[in-house]
């Protein structure tokens, strides 16, 4: 028998160490320490109910366990085989107590469709993929379905593009199918330029065949013979695994001529990007593949009419493609039963920032932000307070405390002033300054703007300058209006999605954290204490014993005072390096 105790960061704050100790002591007291193992585990993703103790092999889960409960668990459950009822979880809906992990609805909030094989199969061995049903959907489509039939399934499934726009994938395929041409292309967008996002990389590294198979299915549906994967050269491992996968698929007759003896020909090539964010925009991506500058052009014409080499081209994101085979095999109804009314299926998020369980998760659409951050994500690091979460990367906006119970889907996020984007989710805590966050994203867009059109090239630069001004304490209330007006003009007049969305981080922080902006421009204070120029180091004379340690460490001699007398910092000399504060043993130095 084993007792598993959750040692995830969230539960650790709630005394999981003490529970471990007490369980061991109780077992020893009953001479059971050699028969029963006490094991510390990682997070169960049940932080709301923590600390958790799971009894194996019975699979009984105890929730909200106290160190004092150890005795009862040992004497009742272990020794007498009786469950400790009061520690079992009560289902909020049925009001019944549930003991088995598998029966807990709240347990396992994640559902893996896109990541179904990631971490499971050897991506460099096609046989493992085949053992997990790779290429089965392709076989089914090629032998049992017409292009129209397969497109209808994708359309009915409600799948929407995961690259950011959220356009219906079935509809996109239908348009490409209807545009007749002797030459058509299927393009997989694996550019993934958002800072903090790595969903697509993980899929390509863990399960490349899922993407290859779906591209071939798309090729059959839109009557294209050639697929191109546009991937950034900064993803060497993903590139290597894709190459291996393509080679093996060709050897097995699953790519190339006469696939599975059906007469259908389809082959895939890799094209490299140099890691420019704007090249993720589909028209820029196509130009880049053609050897031209990676600059967007006006749509229409959409790629489905005139794309690569002027031919009808269907561009989809990696994650979109990874959904295709399960939809074909399990049906449109299955897929559309998952998610919300207008957003079907699951979404992969890359959790980053001040969150305990940094990493990739996949949840059904409609999962709330609270579930993502506080249950699956294990909560905020160091028990700090949640402040905001940025979705949609540099094109998105921030969600705040009032959005915690918002079901995450395409439309809700837009209504909340953010967007789904590709799935990066950056969590910020009370120590983050939202003006600086907006400035950080603007740094990125200014750097990544291709410079083709004036509103984006000049406007974003101006926005950035204004934010810089504000964080330096030189802003005024009028600047806040200027920020908003300029943002709206940039959004309205930019050529491509980059410029049209780049002011979003500014607008959403302005809306949600207006007081913080006001503090920066009126009282010249940064409430989070992040903006260096607005900080002042200050010595509390009551705490200062006059040890002179601070004065000696200050590199610019800004601190004066007699030995054994309270010292003083001269703010006009201080360069705010923080050295004195680190040195002070009496907590006499604070930031104001």
């Amino acid at each position, binding site marked *: 028998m084993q007792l598993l105790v959750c040692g995830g960061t969230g539960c650790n704050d709630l005394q999981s160490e003490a529970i471990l100790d007490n369980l061991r002591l109780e077992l020893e007291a009953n001479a059971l320490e050699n028969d029963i193992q006490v094991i510390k*585990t*990682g*997070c169960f993703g049940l932080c709301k109910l923590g600390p958790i103790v799971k009894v194996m092999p019975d699979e009984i889960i105890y929730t909200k366990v106290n160190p004092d409960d150890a005795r009862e668990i040992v004497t009742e459950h272990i020794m007498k085989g009786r469950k400790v009822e009061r520690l079992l979880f009560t289902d909020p809906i049925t009001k019944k107590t549930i003991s088995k992990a598998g029966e807990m609805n709240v*347990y396992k909030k994640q559902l893996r469709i896109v990541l179904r094989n990631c*971490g499971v199969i050897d991506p460099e061995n096609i046989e493992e993929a*085949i053992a997990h049903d790779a290429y089965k959907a392709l076989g089914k489509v090629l032998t049992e379905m017409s292009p129209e039939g397969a497109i209808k399934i994708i359309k009915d499934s409600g799948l929407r593009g995961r690259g950011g726009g959220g356009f219906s994938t079935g509809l996109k395929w239908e348009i490409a199918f209807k545009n007749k041409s002797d030459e058509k292309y299927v393009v997989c967008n694996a550019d993934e330029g958002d800072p903090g996002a790595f969903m697509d990389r*993980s899929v390509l590294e863990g399960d490349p065949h899922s993407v290859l198979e779906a591209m071939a299915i798309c090729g059959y549906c839109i009557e294209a013979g050639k697929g191109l994967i546009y991937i950034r050269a900064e993803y060497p491992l993903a590139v290597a695994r894709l190459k291996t996968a393509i080679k093996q698929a060709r050897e097995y007759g699953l790519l190339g001529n006469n696939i599975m003896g059906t007469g259908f020909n389809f082959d895939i090539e890799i094209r490299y990007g140099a890691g420019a964010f704007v090249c993720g925009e589909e028209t820029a991506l196509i130009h880049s593949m053609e050897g031209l500058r990676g600059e967007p052009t006006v749509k229409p014409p959409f790629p489905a009419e005139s794309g690569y080499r002027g031919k009808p081209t269907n561009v989809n994101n990696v994650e979109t493609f990874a959904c295709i085979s399960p939809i074909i095999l399990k049906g449109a109804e299955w897929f559309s039963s998952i998610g919300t009314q207008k957003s079907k299926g699951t979404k992969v998020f890359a959790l980053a920032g001040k969150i305990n369980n940094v990493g*990739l998760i996949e949840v059904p659409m409609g999962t709330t932000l609270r579930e993502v951050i506080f249950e699956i994500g294990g909560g905020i690091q160091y028990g700090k307070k949640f402040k905001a979460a940025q979705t949609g990367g540099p094109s998105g906006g921030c969600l705040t405390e009032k959005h915690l119970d918002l079901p995450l889907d395409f439309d809700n996020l837009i209504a909340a002033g953010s967007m789904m984007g590709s799935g990066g989710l950056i969590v910020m805590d009370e120590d983050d300054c939202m003006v600086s966050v907006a400035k950080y994203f603007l740094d990125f867009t200014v750097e990544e703007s291709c410079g083709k059109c004036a509103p984006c090239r000049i406007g974003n630069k101006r926005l950035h300058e204004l934010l810089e001004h504000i964080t330096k304490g030189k802003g005024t209330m009028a600047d806040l209006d200027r920020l908003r007006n300029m943002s709206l003009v940039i959004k309205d007049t930019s050529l491509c999605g980059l410029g049209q969305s780049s002011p979003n981080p500014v607008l959403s922080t302005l809306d949600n954290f207006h007081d913080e902006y006001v503090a920066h421009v009126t009282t010249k204070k940064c409430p989070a204490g992040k903006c260096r120029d607005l900080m002042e180091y200050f010595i509390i004379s009551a705490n200062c014993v006059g040890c002179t340690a601070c004065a000696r460490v200050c590199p610019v001699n800004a601190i004066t005072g007699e030995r054994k007398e309270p010292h003083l910092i001269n703010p006009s000399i201080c360069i705010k390096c923080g050295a004195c504060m680190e040195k002070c043993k009496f907590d006499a130095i604070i930031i104001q």
Partner: protein
Amino acid sequence: METIKSPADLEKSKAAILARMHGKEKTRIRVHMGTSGLASGAKEILEFLTLELQKRSIDADIIRAGDLGYCFAEPTIEVKRVGEDPLVFGNVDKQKADEIIEKYIKNGEYVDGILPVNYRTI
């Protein structure tokens, strides 16, 4: 390997692969080697496991897989003992890997650092 000439062929080859995989039931270890795993030292763990299992005459399959998404606990490995549910261990260094071999792989005894499965899959 012959090329697959029809969907029926694909089924056949799947069956053959599965038979080959399950024919020789033995402990199966997956080392998660995506960018995130590799950056935290998964390659070293793979080499350590390969060498040590051989040294200690333990017959097990080692598979290189992609990442599971547990970036906060990389490197991670999954061990499936014959007839048991697989277990995933996080923050595996050489010392932990040694403990896993000695305790779990050899005797089925659990060791600290198990990452509970908190997802369903299709």
